[in-house]
């Protein structure tokens, strides 16, 4: 069966007001007593994790619900997420503390939020997703899949502890080819034959690994650290090849997606970026379902977004600075258009994840998606009151359906909570005023 999840399909499902359910029915023998998802062989499917970044926050006063707890009404800018409210935790009030460091707008806030450390420099190491990937990401072809919808490979916020930011894939066709191209092994295929070319390559790369000792002996500490990072990447490449040489576990929800259409020409139109987003979302969902990765990072754009509305000469970022607050509406109307568009995209992605059935739960139920942004009030480029959402319950490990407001608290509390729910062994996270030891325990199941 060639499962296609395209944008139209998703939108049709949403318009009809009911979930689009995809994937094949499973047999009882594929569930354990708790209804957890199993691969067709009975092996449990490990939890998965994704991040979803949009630039320039949400308009102050237009997104934060008045109520907290489980019985709250979504505010206007989040209304697109209404159907997912029960599977979402919304955080408000958190902030990033500078501790005297310079604020590099569009960067420093994310630096604090994603790495727990504000440095005043461009240093960016050890983002939450990589800490989680260290726990759940092993044993898949790709340690993570990182994409950017605006065409900028530098828009990704993922970075290992020992290397800089990962480059993002910007082309859906390139991503499709990377995951589902000639090197893809269908986990549900009846026969399996290791590729001799891959066997040779895997064997040959071990000779490169052996260069480590002779090089390291000649280098100073900083160069050694850099080379360490290289050899970590080399190990990841070797593991990827090793996995290609093993017969994959059958996965009932896995189907190979259709090849996306040719990439749009590079464009700064937000609508084009969001169309690409929906295609990426479908490909990522298939990659998760087919066990190709357990971690992904998607960015709509850089924080300082250059995306525009068709016919408008200025970008979203420019409008956050220059657009007056509409005296009738009470907010920046043009900026609002972007925020609403992005939240609709987020809802589309969550819909896709929630439409893939894995056992008695959906894929969304078995994972966590962490949605974050670079600023609180975008008009002020504020580091306060960040809107952050978590989706999914990680196989029942996390309670959802609530709004948690904690004005003035370090936003790193969310990061610590995410790590603990995902199984990272950590009791404190962050540096300086951003160091926290108190996760939001109310979400722990």
């Amino acid at each position, binding site marked *: 069966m060639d499962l296609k999840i395209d944008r139209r399909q998703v939108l049709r499902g949403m318009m009809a007001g009911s979930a689009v359910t995809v994937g094949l029915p499973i047999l009882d023998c594929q569930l354990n007593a708790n209804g957890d998802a199993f691969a067709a062989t009975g092996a449990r499917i490990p939890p998965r994790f994704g991040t979803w970044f949009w630039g320039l926050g949400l308009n102050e006063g237009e997104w934060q619900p008045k109520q907290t707890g489980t019985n709250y009404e979504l505010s206007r800018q989040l209304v697109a997420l209404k159907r997912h409210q029960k599977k979402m935790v919304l955080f408000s009030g958190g902030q990033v503390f500078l501790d005297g460091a*310079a*604020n590099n*707008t569009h960067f*420093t806030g994310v630096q604090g939020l994603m790495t727990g450390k504000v440095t005043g420099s*461009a240093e960016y190491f050890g983002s939450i997703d990589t800490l989680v990937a260290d726990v759940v990401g092993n044993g898949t072809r790709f340690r993570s899949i*990182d994409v950017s919808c605006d*065409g900028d490979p*530098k828009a990704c916020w993922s970075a290992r502890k*020992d*290397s*800089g*930011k990962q*480059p993002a*894939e910007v082309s859906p066709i390139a991503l499709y080819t*990377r995951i589902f191209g000639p090197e893809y092994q269908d986990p549900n295929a009846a026969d399996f034959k290791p590729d*001799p070319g891959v*066997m*040779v*390559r895997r*064997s*040959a*790369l071990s*000779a*490169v690994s052996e*260069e480590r000792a*002779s*090089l390291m*002996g*000649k*280098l*100073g500490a*900083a*160069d050694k*650290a*850099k*080379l360490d*990072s*290289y050899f970590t*990447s*080399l190990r990841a*490449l070797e593991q*990827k090849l090793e996995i290609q040489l093993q017969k994959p576990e059958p996965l009932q929800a896995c189907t190979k997606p259709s090849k996306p259409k040719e990439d749009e*020409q590079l464009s*700064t*139109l937000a609508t084009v970026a969001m169309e690409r987003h929906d295609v990426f979302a479908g490909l990522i969902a298939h990659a998760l379902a087919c066990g190709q990765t357990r971690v992904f990072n998607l960015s709509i754009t850089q924080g300082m977004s*250059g995306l*525009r509305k*068709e*016919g408008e*000469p*200025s*970008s979203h970022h420019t409008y956050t*600075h*220059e*657009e007056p*607050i509409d005296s009738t509406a009470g907010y920046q109307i043009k900026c609002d258009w972007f925020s609403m568009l992005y939240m609709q995209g987020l809802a589309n992605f969550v819909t896709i994840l929630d439409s893939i059935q894995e056992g008695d739960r959906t894929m969304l139920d078995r994972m966590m998606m962490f949605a974050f942004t670079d600023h609180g009030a975008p*008009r*002020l*480029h*504020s580091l306060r009151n960040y809107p952050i959402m978590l989706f999914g319950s990680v196989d029942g490990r996390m309670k959802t359906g609530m709004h948690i407001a904690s004005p003035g608290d370090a936003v790193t509390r969310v990061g610590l909570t995410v790590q603990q729910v995902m199984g990272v062994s950590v009791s404190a996270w962050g540096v300086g005023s951003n160091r926290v030891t108190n996760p939001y325990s109310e979400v722990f199941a």
Partner: protein
Amino acid sequence: MKNVRVSLRRGLIAAVSLVSLAAATPAIVVWAADTAPAADEPTSVRLSPSQFRQTIADVFGTGIVISGRFEPEVREQGLLAVGARKASITDMGLERYDELARNIAAQVVDERNRVTLIPCKPKSATAADDACARTFLASAGKLLYRRSLNDGELAALVKVAGDSANGLKDFYAGVGTSVANMLVSPNFLFRYKFVEADADNAGKFRLDSFSKAQALSYLLWNSTPDAMLIDAAESGKLHTKAGLQFQVDRMLSSPRVEGGIRAFFSDMLGFSDFEVLSKDPMFFPRYTIRVKEESQEQTLRTIVDHIVKRQGDYRDLFTTPNTFLTRALASLYAVPLVETTDNGQPMRWIPYTYPEGDPRAGILAHASFVALHSPAGRTSPTGRGKALRENILCQAVPAPPGNVDFSAVEQASRELSTARERLAAHATQPMCAGCHKITDPMGLALENFDSSGGYRTTENGAQIDTNVEVSGVKISGAAGLAKAIHGDPAAVSCVAKRIFAFGAGRLPLATDVEWNRIEKAFASSKYNVLSLMREIALSDLFYRPQNIQLASASGK
């Protein structure tokens, strides 16, 4: 010795050991960064995409097609070449390098290329032939690793080639596997600076000759040393004054120096940002993908013509009426280009000279500058001014502050037609004015160029005023700005520092006596860039290790 970062005891041990072992033992120390911040910074440099491409072209020929994306680069101190010092290789980056490597290797050994690139024929095309593989891998490896391979390295490559050939029953596929290995090896993807005891100056250190050779070749050619340069390094001639001078002059007279000039100016002018540049076709239908590519080539051709062929004064790049245009570019600039030998070639480069006083003269008026530093739909005098300050004059523009209330800037009741009117609001706000006064006037002088680089005199129906005041000097329009930059000492100081940093991976210290001498020589040469490159390449400063660090005692 300044800034030495070793303990006295370790330092003494090192000095004694090095002096005594210098003749017989390869270096066991490495040097770290020599400018602030001096703390343990890496000295190895990741090969840039342009260096990767140029190296492959020089080693295997220009017929090898390199398709695929590289890991993004990071700009530091104005240059990607400096940022490359901190760059490592991520998971996805190495995956991409591996794809590139396999693809290049397959082309090197394919039926079309093997005859010319592999200097021997295997006994059997379907089995290993260690002797033939060794011959080829030794010669290719020497150019890729920028030094002769040692016995262990060569043996490992030959073994990989042999095992693969036997496994795949294809000699050439086996050799290809080893080529791919070399192309993903840290010995190829990173360039290193190793230090040895200076045999001519007891107790002092110097770059070893191979490190010196590659520093020289990537400065002048943006590529790997050729066999002659590696031989000079191997024989020790590169450590002699005459030997170095011979190589520098030979390299500067080679056509490959054009590659070095193109790579440097592409880096300095920020051309990597073209990768994510697009314009709204609704507003700028003439700004096509072709124009985007041709605009970069226009500037690089103009620079090469002026600096390499004419050996002109660097400052004249900002005012030169001479350039090269295609029909598409002429259409963008509204220039009446006459093709006298039109034979239907779609992208023919035609020399063009602007009339005296034309505001489109000089490289700042090229679309490669005014379009690159403009958002998709309209201009940004702030962005252009910032780029001019940072890229051309080496001046730092502070980042905008956070938590700023823009209410005062947002003027709901006014229709603001021009960029000048929109920016006037910022200049009246003390929090904004400081930086906007640095950037905006220069950018406003270029407002006759729209976001795509097209020439205009009005914006939204209002006349554009390009009269500005920069540091108390009144300037009128692009031509006035070009003259001001031409006369600004910061422009020549900036390009000199950046060329040094492009090769060395670090900026020179402004107070260094040798650097001051080089700057004076640059002025004496009437700001001849090739002459500056020669001075740098011959100077001890370029190769001088400053912060010595002991490497592991187990080092080679």
